[in-house]
């Protein structure tokens, strides 16, 4: 697909334009959204929430960064390795906790086999919530950046691809 075939009006929408207002707002809001996501994960044991909801909120905070600072730049900053690691680590922790209870003489995922009091069991549940959160946020961040790859390019990339006559996706 060469650049000449692409509808020029559509291409304008795709170029990333720095906006001071959006960047400042996002820089202010993101730490709070991220912290709220972690709170929902941790505090799911005692109030509404849990790993699934918290993971989505954490992912949303990263997507905000993507919208403000350019999707390709954020994709490189967050690195695909990190999202993949989050997914795999989360799943592994959950399974290992299950296997650990079998090794301690209980049933699979039977937390009482660890011989802890109820506060200890609560911490195991919270570790699992965190693991679920890592899976969910990893999958959502990965999906978003894979879907949005190539959208909102920076102006320099645009010139480069116009000069070489090649599509950005082919070169990256």
């Amino acid at each position, binding site marked *: 697909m060469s650049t000449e075939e692409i509808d020029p009006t559509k291409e304008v929408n795709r170029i990333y334009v720095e906006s001071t207002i959006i960047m400042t707002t996002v820089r202010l809001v993101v730490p709070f959204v991220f912290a709220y996501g972690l709170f929902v994960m941790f505090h799911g044991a005692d109030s*509404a929430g849990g790993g699934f909801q918290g993971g989505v909120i954490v992912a949303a905070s990263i997507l905000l960064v993507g919208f403000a600072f350019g999707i390709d730049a954020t994709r490189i900053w967050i690195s695909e390795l990190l999202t993949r690691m989050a997914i795999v680590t989360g799943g592994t922790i959950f399974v290992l906790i299950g296997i650990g209870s079998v090794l301690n003489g209980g049933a699979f995922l039977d937390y009482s086999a660890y011989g802890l009091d109820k506060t200890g069991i609560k911490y195991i549940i919270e570790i699992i919530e965190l693991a679920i959160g890592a899976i969910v946020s990893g999958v959502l961040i990965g999906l978003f950046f894979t879907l949005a790859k190539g959208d909102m390019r920076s102006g320099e990339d645009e010139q480069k691809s116009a000069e070489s006559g090649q599509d950005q996706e082919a070169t990256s």
Partner: protein
Amino acid sequence: MLVTITLQAVLFLALFIALVAVALRDVLNSIIAFAVFSFAVAITWVLFAAPDVALTEAAVGAGITTILFLVTIARTVRPSSEELFESIGWRGGVLAVALMGLLVVTVPSLPAIGSTSAPIATAELTNYYLENADTETGVKNVVTAILVAYRGFDTLGEATVVITAGLAALIVLRQETFL
């Protein structure tokens, strides 16, 4: 009383917005209407005292899904027509009304909202969870206790579904680069 009035207003809004989302011609407008619909449904869950479900609906339905839809339609072409609403064919309309009628028929068999004689309220299992969740797991939110402790195996399956579906989608979307 106030809750009932609010609930009716929110449900009416949800119904109206759902119809708007179906009828709008431009997909971008439909997606925005759909986000509003999800938010109205989230408020409904809050009014039904189900904050866990409400949080999920607001975060997933109104939040992330909308963004993923937006990213996806950015790659499509807008319809050239200037009409605001899509014309709906009679076949589709009849089918939709028939399906809705079928669903409405089942509504009277549901227990009343907040009914103490509903099967879920009288079940032995429900009361066991409510009485023992705190002492057995140390978790005050019974929903979390059931999800992660009593039904931990189901949740592990759920997490596996998220991992598998996510990885499958990522592999398909990456096309030529598989690593």
